[in-house]
């Protein structure tokens, strides 16, 4: 059965999830990446959209803008790690519950997720058209002067996903765990190649 989170997301919903779970999201999500994080955390501005119990999506969409309304062409996650230095403060200030992005995030975000009952999930990178098809409407747009990729787009979504829980509210961090596993295999994978290039400096 599909696990579907619905906004507003409560702390109990978050606590029921663990790293590696696959979930979908129904309700409202708001895009925000480098510039939105900088404004909220470094410049002390309040997010125009109230993110309390809400969802922030590290993403910059392509939107066809016209007087008749905004049409979403494609949207997909961007690398969350760029927001690592600001995310913990962002969670604390906004009360956001779900962060969606691409790739893992670091220990500061993981600690904030545990403390404030939030999660980080990864959406499929580079699957922008499928994702756009799960967005029912663009409901609003704030801070448009930041440029199309950087501003806040408010989107109504239905069963948006699949999303993989990468940081849970119990201290788990999927990407950090995986990275350690990959690192443990590195020496063994390198060894035969190092052996084979040993004589490459010899003049032919």
């Amino acid at each position, binding site marked *: 059965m599909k696990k579907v989170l619905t906004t507003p997301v409560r702390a109990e919903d978050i606590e029921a999830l663990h790293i590696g779970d696959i979930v979908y999201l129904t309700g409202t999500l708001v895009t925000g990446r480098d510039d939105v994080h900088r404004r909220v955390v470094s410049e002390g501005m309040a997010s125009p959209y109230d993110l309390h119990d809400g969802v922030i999506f590290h993403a910059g969409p392509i939107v066809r803008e016209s007087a008749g309304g905004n049409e979403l062409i*494609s949207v997909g996650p*961007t690398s969350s790690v760029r927001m690592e230095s600001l995310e913990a403060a962002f969670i604390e200030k906004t009360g956001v519950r779900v962060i969606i992005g691409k790739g893992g995030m670091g220990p500061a975000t993981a600690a904030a997720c545990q403390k404030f009952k939030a999660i980080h999930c990864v959406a499929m990178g580079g699957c922008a058209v*499928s994702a756009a098809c799960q967005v029912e409407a663009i409901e609003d747009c704030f801070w448009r002067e930041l440029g199309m990729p950087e501003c806040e787009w408010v989107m109504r979504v239905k069963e948006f996903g699949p999303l993989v829980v990468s940081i849970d509210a119990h201290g788990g961090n999927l990407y950090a765990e995986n*990275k350690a596993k990959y690192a443990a295999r590195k020496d063994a*994978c390198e060894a035969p190649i190092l052996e084979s290039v040993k004589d490459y*400096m010899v003049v032919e």
Partner: protein
Amino acid sequence: MTNKEAGAVLTDVMERFLCVACKRLPDDVYEKLRQCRAAETSELQRVIYDSYFDNLRRAWEMGRPCCQDTGLLHFYIRCGADFPYMGAVEPALRLAVARATASAPLRENTVDYFTERNTGDNTGERMPWLHWDILPEGSDLEICAYFAGAGCCLPGRAQVFKPADGYGAIVKYVFDAVADLALNACPPLIVGVGLGHNVENAAVLSKMAYLRPLGTSHPHPKGAKLERDLLAGLNGLGIGAQGLPGERVAMEVHVESSARHTATIAVGVNVSCYTHRRGFITFHEDMSWEQDSYKGVSL
């Protein structure tokens, strides 16, 4: 044909070419991606690859860019010295990018330094980025167009080593770049390795490496072996699509080299994501043209 007329043809054809190239993968990359999918066994990887192929199908059917990050536009140009309209090329490519930004549409990604303004049409200071190779013979203009997304630019790097570090330094450098940095670049990747003598020549070569058509290999047998060994080694790390556990972090590893200084070994690593959006198109001196990256597709 005047320079102006040739420029108009180039602008028009390149705009249409870009509109295709951002919406589907070149045939060789699509086929390679299918092979990678077949190598994956886990449920999670199956879900990811299903998303990849579902997305590619929808992108083409709906006529939309397959990834929202349509990047910055790079053109790698090989131009025969006898091609008559060289002067028309740069302005035509700039205009084609600006027009494709509206017509594809491409995401507005281009920000000038210091003004920090998004230019709105993906042209800007020295952007699109052009790299010219002038060939001593011939009159064809071959253009390789590439959409450089941010996620796959982030892991890129280059470094200069001492000869005493040997080829082992190259191997370790590639492993570090891929295993530590490239997980977020939407694997399976095409890994470009450039071997040169200083930092920027190695970096340029790493770019040329990943633009090379799939199925080609380094001309020297040891270079070709290094490509195969690195591919097998990287794919042994246990990393799959989206950097999550799996079998294939790389679709292919390509190595390009120049001669080196006797006292340096320089390595560049550049990766491209699973949506490897690069297309080749060739114009002849009468401005007729052909492309074979997308067989059976008319622009």
